[in-house]
């Protein structure tokens, strides 16, 4: 522990109110080594950022030397330099400094000393500033007039302890999140294997490889197949949502033919739409530019949106997929999926992209985990776009998402 203190030299004290309390400070300024009973390094290192020397002195007096080692600087710049040299246990921060004022001072200090508790000192009892300070992450605040040798050490001890607990909680929370994600990921994988086997054997039966089927047998197996497929999709969603949360889902945007993906997706869902009695319509801008997207993930987004749209549209209705250059942001391509379903109540709209939210639209069938739209939003955002929903009860729903238009570097050609 360095014993050289960057406390600037100051003249004789102007009005020592309590000489006894002032003694340690005086001793320190003339370079006496730390008290032998306290090993260097076990004391709490306080970085005092205060340009008013009288205030600074009062604070140093209030901190017993046996417990605290005060490093005093008079500007934010000096505080930053000191913080770069190494860790301090707590920062005592005056809010009006020559190179910083109020909230700006706080933000600067919090950024310069991550993980170090900051206690703010204010000249007057201004609750607004204080409340604001605590809200942005300051551990406590003190009004200078009220600082004494009992309150200040206690405040510092508590601030340090709170910061430590916060860090501990944070680490614990991160660890739990990680464990949960690992568990979900593992479970999803393990669930898939037997489910795949069920699917494969059901398909062997449906394809009559195990022998001819009666009409009833075929119907029962088709129902089994439909449910297995649905379960498989839910496990897939769970796995994807977990990976999105953990940041381990691979999204690799390249030049992608949006029109082609849209056509493929609609073809894949054509049977579903037909069963539901819903017409699928495309309205793509002619000579639509490629987008910068991950083909697999784009297909996933479109499939989710179309699947929802078809599911909620009554027989005789239609679902339109439209794509065109974004009129508000010409570097983007805007894709819309519009249905003629029952619409979504205004109060449910803000919740719709959240996890485990079941569509609040009218209608009875509520199957699934409620992860589809959450996954859509995350995937669109990860590909540089945004997604939103517009709906009026009784007049259908439109989901719109944007993706960056592909601007090909001269040597590159679109690959998908």
């Amino acid at each position, binding site marked *: 522990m360095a014993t050289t203190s960057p406390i600037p030299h100051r003249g004789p004290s102007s009005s020592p109110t309590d000489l006894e309390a002032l003694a340690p400070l005086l001793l320190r300024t003339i370079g006496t080594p730390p008290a032998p009973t306290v090993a260097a390094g076990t004391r709490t290192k306080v970085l005092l950022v205060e340009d008013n020397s009288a205030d600074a002195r009062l604070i140093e007096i209030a901190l017993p030397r046996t417990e605290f080692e005060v490093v005093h600087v008079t500007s934010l710049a000096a505080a930053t330099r000191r913080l770069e040299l190494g860790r301090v246990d707590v920062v005592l921060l005056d809010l009006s400094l020559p190179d910083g004022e109020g909230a700006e001072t706080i933000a600067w200090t919090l950024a310069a000393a991550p993980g170090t508790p900051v206690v703010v000192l204010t000249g007057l009892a201004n609750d607004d500033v204080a409340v604001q300070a605590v809200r942005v992450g300051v551990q406590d605040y003190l009004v200078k007039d009220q600082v004494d040798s009992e309150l200040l050490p206690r405040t510092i001890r508590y601030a340090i302890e709170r910061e430590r607990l916060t860090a501990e909680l944070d680490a614990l929370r991160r660890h739990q999140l990680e464990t949960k994600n690992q568990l979900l990921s593992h479970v999803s994988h393990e669930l898939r*294997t*037997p489910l*795949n086997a069920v699917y494969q054997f059901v*398909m*062997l039966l449906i394809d009559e490889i195990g022998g001819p089927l009666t009409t009833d047998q075929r119907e029962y197996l088709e129902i089994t197949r439909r449910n297995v497929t649905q379960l498989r999709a839910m496990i897939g969603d769970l796995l994807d949502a977990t990976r999105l949360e953990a940041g381990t889902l691979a999204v690799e945007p390249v030049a992608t033919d949006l029109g082609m993906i849209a056509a493929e997706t609609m073809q894949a869902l054509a049977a579903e739409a037909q069963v539901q009695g819903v017409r699928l319509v495309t309205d793509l801008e002619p000579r639509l530019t490629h987008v910068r997207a991950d*083909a*697999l993930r784009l*297909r996933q987004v479109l499939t989710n949106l179309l699947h929802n749209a078809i599911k909620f549209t009554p027989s005789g209705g239609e679902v339109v997929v439209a794509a065109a250059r974004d009129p508000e942001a010409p570097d983007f391509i805007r894709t819309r999926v519009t249905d003629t379903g029952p619409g979504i109540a205004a109060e449910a709209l803000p919740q719709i992209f959240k996890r485990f939210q079941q569509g609040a639209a009218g209608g009875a069938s509520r199957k699934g985990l409620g992860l589809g739209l959450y996954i859509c939003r995350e995937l669109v955002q990860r590909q540089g776009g945004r997604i939103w929903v517009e709906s009026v009860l009784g007049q259908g729903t439109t989901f719109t998402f944007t993706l960056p238009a592909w601007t090909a570097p001269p040597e590159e050609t679109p690959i998908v």
Partner: protein
Amino acid sequence: MEATKRARIMIVEDDDDARYALRVRLRASGYDPVTAPNALYAMRLAQRESVDLVVLDLGLPDVDGIGLLRELHGEPSLANVPVVVVTARDAATAAVAAHEAGAFAFLQKPVETQVLKETISRALFFRRVGALRGGVLPPAERPAPLGAGQ
């Protein structure tokens, strides 16, 4: 199907039931399937019997499937045998790794029967006409890595 001799397809898959289902499926499609539950067994089988194509599941217990893919291609009797990789893994990264290691095609589980059949007959066609180099198509004729999955 093959007019003369049925093509022998080696299935490398650790899950017993998945392996069984695939064997039944391929036999019903007119192929002659042989199976291996792990990499070691697969290598021995490949040395003993002539194989026309390998369907390889990437999640094997004893070695990394990509490692096995490289080993299979290193085996002289298998040098020009196409390998169709099947996996439930995260598609993008696995597909790239499989292609770099010389897989003929990459399919994501669950594989639709039609897609698997088409991929196999295509691979066997290329093998018959001698278009494969080290088990894979020359780069110009390769399909895009992600194309076949869906």
